[in-house]
């Protein structure tokens, strides 16, 4: 364990530490059991979900429920649940991969799956008492019962702690009476159990409760919401009218609901990123298959540079998403193992393990939810008019992708949160940003070196660029913290800039480390396309970072300081040897075309 501890990055530390490619976990590292799980999930998805895609588009809520039951029979709902409570107690990576490959058929099922296994079950496994876990978790793990999570209210969305739902203790001290209105509750239509957040008296923070769904106990549901996408995912309002809940059903302590809500969301976020990955793979595959078949001007459209460019970009972003998601997932798994080895219960270890990487969870949620949207958008474009038709799967994929940017914390909230958490970690001394930020400040004042480094080794220039991109973040965020102190949180646009920089660094670095690791084990030639994807991703990332860096700097620095920082930005984002991006894209696209699928 000690060896892992030494090498294992803490959350947010990727920004100030260099990672060796041997130390990242990649999808190529799945063991035989994980490979078998992946195939089983894909088979389930093909047979039970994708084969019936039109039923979801016709709002067949009952069918979503039926699929959830089948998923339960196959054990998919219990992978993350400890064995003592009827689950399979699998490691974090395995639970990620189930979530990944089960989610691409339709957003309707994927949402039902995520809401049940994540926010519907996790609050109890993470915070429940022994009695609560014994009583409720086994049914949830097998899919005998389904769970839903009632946090949002008409007046409390992003500001989740501001809910008006109340919980009042009875005179005999044995029960709470819950009153209030919850909104946008996934799985409400078929769940047996609600996790409900309510306020006791005028507590600062809300409190969590486990509430069994019993219409005779003052629980009523609104009509199904009619939505842009995920049409067969049940989404309803839930009304609590004098609903009586035994005191034993309080989750954790009084006033701890907000903490529960936030921690459940950490897991939810990284799993949501996973849930967008296979959609990208499938969309890319469907798009390239169409492009290989469809002819215009007597040419398969896949042979046109304009289409190749799209295919390559779609593949590269999916590749980076996979790389970053599984890298973080393995960090979480290792951190949980370390904590367990040092005496934490499984429950504590899991909670702390995920919390440690809350920054990465937020970054991934934002990045991958936006990538899948772009991917679906380009998928429609490749299909042309047919892409706009309900007859092809692109249209639904595009509509379904849209929700991922809204729930589990909007992308704006997650962007600001990621930078906020990082700054907080630095203040608490968990990650040393100050030292490296000072060094960057010194470097800005110093005379730049004009030596041309030796970039002959694979990825040596790219890794050097990554190291410099980290300096961009430290420069921008470091000066901003200095300038604004705690007021920084009021400068939202600047925070968004900083977060965009952070996202691109994490994604690009992960893609490069994966391609490097694979090149080392299989050979550079065999990995030509992976190398090209990593380089292409980085090239795009550098452009995004330049723009966001510049916006940020100009927003708060003036005169000489501004000039110096802009010069630093230029230096830090400089290529000595520009990659030929057109060639990179062609290399990637030719491979995807030849294999007729996303093949990495």
């Amino acid at each position, binding site marked *: 364990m000690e060896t892992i501890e030494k090498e294992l990055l803490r959350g947010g530390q990727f920004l100030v530490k260099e990672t060796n490619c041997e130390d990242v976990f990649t999808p190529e590292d799945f063991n035989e059991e994980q490979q078998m799980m992946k195939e*089983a999930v894909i088979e389930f998805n093909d047979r039970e979900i994708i084969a019936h895609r039109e039923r979801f588009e016709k709002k067949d809520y009952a069918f979503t429920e039926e699929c959830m039951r089948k998923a339960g*029979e*196959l*054990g998919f709902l219990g992978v993350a649940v400890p064995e003592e409570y009827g689950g*399979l107690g699998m490691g974090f990576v395995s639970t990620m991969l189930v979530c990944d490959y089960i989610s691409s058929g339709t957003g309707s099922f994927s949402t039902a799956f995520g809401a049940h296994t994540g926010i519907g079950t996790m609050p109890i496994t993470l915070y429940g008492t022994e009695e609560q876990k014994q009583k409720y978790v086994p049914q949830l793990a097998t899919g005998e019962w389904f769970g839903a999570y009632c946090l949002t209210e008409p007046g409390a969305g992003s500001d989740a702690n501001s809910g008006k739902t109340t919980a009042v203790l009875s005179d005999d001290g044995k029960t709470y009476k819950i009153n209030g209105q919850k909104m946008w509750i996934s799985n409400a239509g078929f769940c047996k159990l609600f996790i409900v957040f309510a306020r006791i008296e005028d507590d600062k923070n809300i409190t969590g409760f486990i509430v069994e769904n019993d219409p005779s106990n003052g629980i009523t549901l609104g009509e199904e919401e009619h939505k842009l996408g995920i049409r067969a995912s049940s989404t309803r309002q839930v009304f609590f009218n004098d609903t009586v809940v035994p005191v034993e059903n309080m989750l954790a302590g009084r006033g701890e609901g907000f903490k529960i809500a936030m921690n459940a969301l950490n897991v939810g976020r990284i799993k949501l990123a996973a849930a967008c990955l296979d959609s990208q793979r499938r969309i890319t595959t469907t798009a390239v298959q169409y492009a290989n078949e469809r002819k215009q001007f007597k040419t398969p459209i896949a042979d046109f540079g304009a289409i190749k460019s799209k295919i390559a970009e779609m593949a590269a972003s999916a590749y980076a998403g996979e790389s970053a998601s599984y890298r973080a997932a393995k960090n979480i798994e290792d951190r949980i193992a370390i904590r367990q080895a040092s005496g934490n219960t499984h429950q504590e270890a899991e909670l702390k393990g995920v919390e440690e990487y809350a920054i990465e969870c937020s970054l991934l949620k934002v990045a991958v939810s936006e990538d899948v949207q772009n991917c679906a958008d380009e998928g429609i474009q490749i299909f042309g008019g047919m892409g706009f038709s309900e007859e092809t799967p692109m249209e639904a994929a595009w509509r379904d992708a849209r929700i991922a940017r809204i729930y589990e914390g909007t992308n704006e909230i997650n962007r600001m949160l990621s930078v906020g958490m990082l700054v907080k970690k630095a203040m608490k001394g968990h990650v040393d940003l100050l030292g490296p930020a000072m060094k960057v400040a010194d470097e800005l004042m110093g005379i730049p070196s004009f030596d041309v480094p030796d970039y002959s080794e694979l990825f040596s220039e790219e890794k050097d660029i990554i190291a410099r991109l980290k300096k961009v973040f430290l420069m921008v965020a470091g000066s901003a913290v200095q300038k604004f102190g705690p007021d920084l949180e009021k400068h939202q646009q600047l925070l968004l800039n900083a977060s965009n920089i952070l996202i691109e660094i994490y994604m690009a670095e992960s893609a490069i480390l994966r391609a490097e690791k694979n090149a080392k084990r299989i050979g550079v030639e065999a990995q030509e396309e992976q190398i090209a994807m990593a380089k292409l991703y980085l090239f795009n990332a550098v452009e995004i970072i330049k723009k966001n860096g510049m916006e940020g700097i100009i927003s708060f620095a003036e005169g000489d300081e501004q000039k110096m920082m802009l010069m630093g930005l230029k230096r830090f984002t400089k290529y000595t040897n520009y990659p030929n991006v057109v060639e990179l894209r062609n290399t990637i696209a030719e491979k995807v075309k030849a294999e007729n699928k996303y093949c990495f």
Partner: protein
Amino acid sequence: MKILVCISHVPDTTSKINFTDGDTKFDTNGVQFVINPNDEFGLTRAMWFKEKQGASVDVVNVGGPETEPTLRKALAIGADAAIRVNTEATDGFAVAKQLAKVVKDGAYDLVIAGRESIDYNGGMVPGMLASLIGANFVANCIGLEIEGTSAKAVREIDGGKETVSTSLPLVIGGQKGLVEESDLRIPNMRGIMMARKKPLNVMEPIDPSAETNATSFEKPAPKGAVKLVDADNVDELVSLLHNEAKVI
């Protein structure tokens, strides 16, 4: 009843087929392997016997270590134990010889093989195996019921079906119909976890020499482009069919 299901490790039907070494070897690069579909129907039927009538189900494969994930999938689906005979599956007779030893050693009552494996489509193994061990044999089997030691099997024949009665020990060459596609099982997560703990025994082969040796493979010529002929232009169509396609 002791059942042995023979499992072939074959390329997925969507794989791209290429050959190496001067067209003498199948190029496994980038190919995904699966349980031979005919064997999967058989395995699923075997699981039915196990669950409904009580039986033990072992699976066997003749092949190198690379076939173990396929055997492990069979274990995940529910087989009790797996055997791998550690030698390359060269020709039908060589495989049947190895299997005969396994069947004799294990005293199996029923051997379910596929009518053919979809890689080289030899279709010889089940018949040869039956004759080597002196068991009854039903080829192209699309239905099987067992009561005590008697068996009722349905065979596919040209344009129809034949029902035969026979008895154990029995070897069948099975196919779709033993169960339907919708009956095929997706290994459940618990099964996958348990598969790791089930025995997978590796046996060394007896005299692995083959009687035949593939000297080369050839792929069918790729389909040429389709020529479209205007519906009014019958003369051109006739001329093309006569001169180019040479079919009339």
